[in-house]
């Protein structure tokens, strides 16, 4: 296992995302400081998920989106550099470096253990002791170890929804990412699982940069150091979370926080 490499800073410049004719995101700039939790809020269709899925190029590779602009993860340009997009090996590297947790829990139909070691195995780690250590570390980080340490061979699909989502977080952590993207990870989860996931974010942010798309402004308030508000494919404003909620500078943000966009 490699030494924790440390969190990456993300600098997005002029990022546009289109699906065919539909523009999901237009010319967006955003900087996420290394080692912070960055919240992204906004109504449905605001482009926040498109932005998130572009940070590890999943929108481009899997959703059929076209994306322009520049995204730097740490020192590496990933978006305008065609080589990253075209080369499976560098895509794999990117995905290990920038992990993602989806909105609905997506355990693979196999055991808890096998779910967590999927990423490391694909990366070529096959030594059993190393894998065991990775599983324990990842599950502990996701505050799940105590619940499942005695039944790691259980089918992941038989866990509760909240447990499944924490397993997915653990699975993402197991690849040693420097950035983790979370796409409304707690929608529909029980409060305990939500609290555990938020706890994980707070604990690990010294080692991992988190970008958290959330529907809940309360969640942003609880865990995000900075928060951006997206609306109709544009980033409207970004500020320290406390400031954004207390003194939004733009009228759209104020309307949203007042609950005028649902």
């Amino acid at each position, binding site marked *: 296992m490699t030494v924790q490499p440390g969190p990456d800073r993300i600098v997005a410049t002029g990022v546009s995302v289109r699906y065919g004719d539909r523009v999901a995101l237009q010319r967006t700039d955003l900087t996420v400081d290394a080692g912070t939790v960055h919240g992204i809020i906004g109504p449905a269709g605001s482009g926040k998920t498109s932005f998130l899925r572009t940070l590890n190029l999943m929108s481009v590779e899997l959703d059929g989106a076209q994306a322009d602009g520049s995204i730097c993860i740490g020192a590496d340009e990933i978006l305008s550099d065609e080589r990253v997009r075209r080369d499976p090996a560098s895509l794999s590297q990117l*995905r*290990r470096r920038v992990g993602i947790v989806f909105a*609905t829990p997506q355990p693979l139909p196999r055991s808890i253990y096998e779910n967590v070691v999927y990423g490391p195995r694909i990366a070529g780690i096959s030594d059993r002791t190393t894998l065991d250590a990775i599983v324990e570390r990842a599950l502990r980080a996701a505050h799940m170890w105590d619940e499942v340490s005695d039944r790691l061979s259980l089918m992941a699909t038989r866990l509760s929804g909240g447990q499944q989502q924490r397993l997915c977080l653990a699975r*993402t952590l197991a690849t040693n990412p420097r950035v983790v993207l979370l796409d409304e990870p707690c929608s529909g989860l029980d409060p305990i699982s939500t609290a555990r996931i938020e706890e994980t974010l707070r604990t690990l942010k010294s080692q991992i940069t988190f970008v958290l798309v959330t529907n809940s402004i309360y969640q942003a308030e609880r865990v995000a150091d900075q928060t951006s508000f997206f609306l109709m494919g544009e980033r409207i404003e970004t500020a320290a979370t406390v400031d954004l909620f207390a003194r939004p500078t733009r009228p759209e943000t104020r309307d949203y926080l007042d609950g005028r966009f649902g």
Partner: protein
Amino acid sequence: MTATMVEENRASVAPRLAQQVARVALWGATALTVGILVFIIVFVMRRGLGAISWSFLTDAPQRSGAEGGIFPTIVSTLYVTLAAVLVATPLGLGAAIYLAEYTTEGRLSGIIRRGTESLAGIPSIIFGLFGFAFFVTALGMGWSILSGGLTLGIMILPTVIRTSEEALRAVPREYRHVAQSLGASKWDAIRSVVLPVAAPGVVTGIVLGIGRAISETAAVIFTAGVALATPTSPFDSARTMSVHFYTLTMEGISDEQAYGTAAVLVVTILVINVTAYTLMRRFTRSLR
């Protein structure tokens, strides 16, 4: 027949009566169809099961099959079918993976799909002719297990492609995304996540193909030949159970032996179909 009767009645008689009559007629037709199947099975089994014994299955035939067992034809059937599966599985599964995972619907996939459907619509006797002209004669393989297996392999290819493609498409898209989000390449995701989930569906296709291969006669008789000895090499001519049964019947060699062979064939086919069906059910349920 019944449908038109009901149709005429509709104008004069109250719709409710028409409904009742139609109901009875439709269920009657369904019962008749199931009845035909039951009749076929009972008819073959009633006389056939009596002819089956351990020695019938393990002995070599005597006097062109008038006496003795059918052992060599069982072995031949196994070999020819195995060869067919070995041809059809890699090609069919590969094609299915390509169609389901690597191509968007376009010209290329359209051509491939239509080619596959056309291949499925070709009569088996044409496969026999082709196998004879190509494998037996042009490639000089002679009447052999190899010629028969290759011919059957091409014949069952569409079955394997279609069933496997459906199975792959039934695997939730999210699994691929999860795998790729964890650093898997597209192929890694297919190999390590999609294929294991789709496996029962793929196996169903192969099992159905095996069923077709075992029951086939027209395509194998001109490619694998009719030799009644137990084959010892892929280049030996071999008589499959179906061909043997056909010969026994048409040459009037022995009714007793014919019924016995038919019973073995029918039992085999029933087992294969039930297996395929059970696998498919388990597969679709697992994804529900």
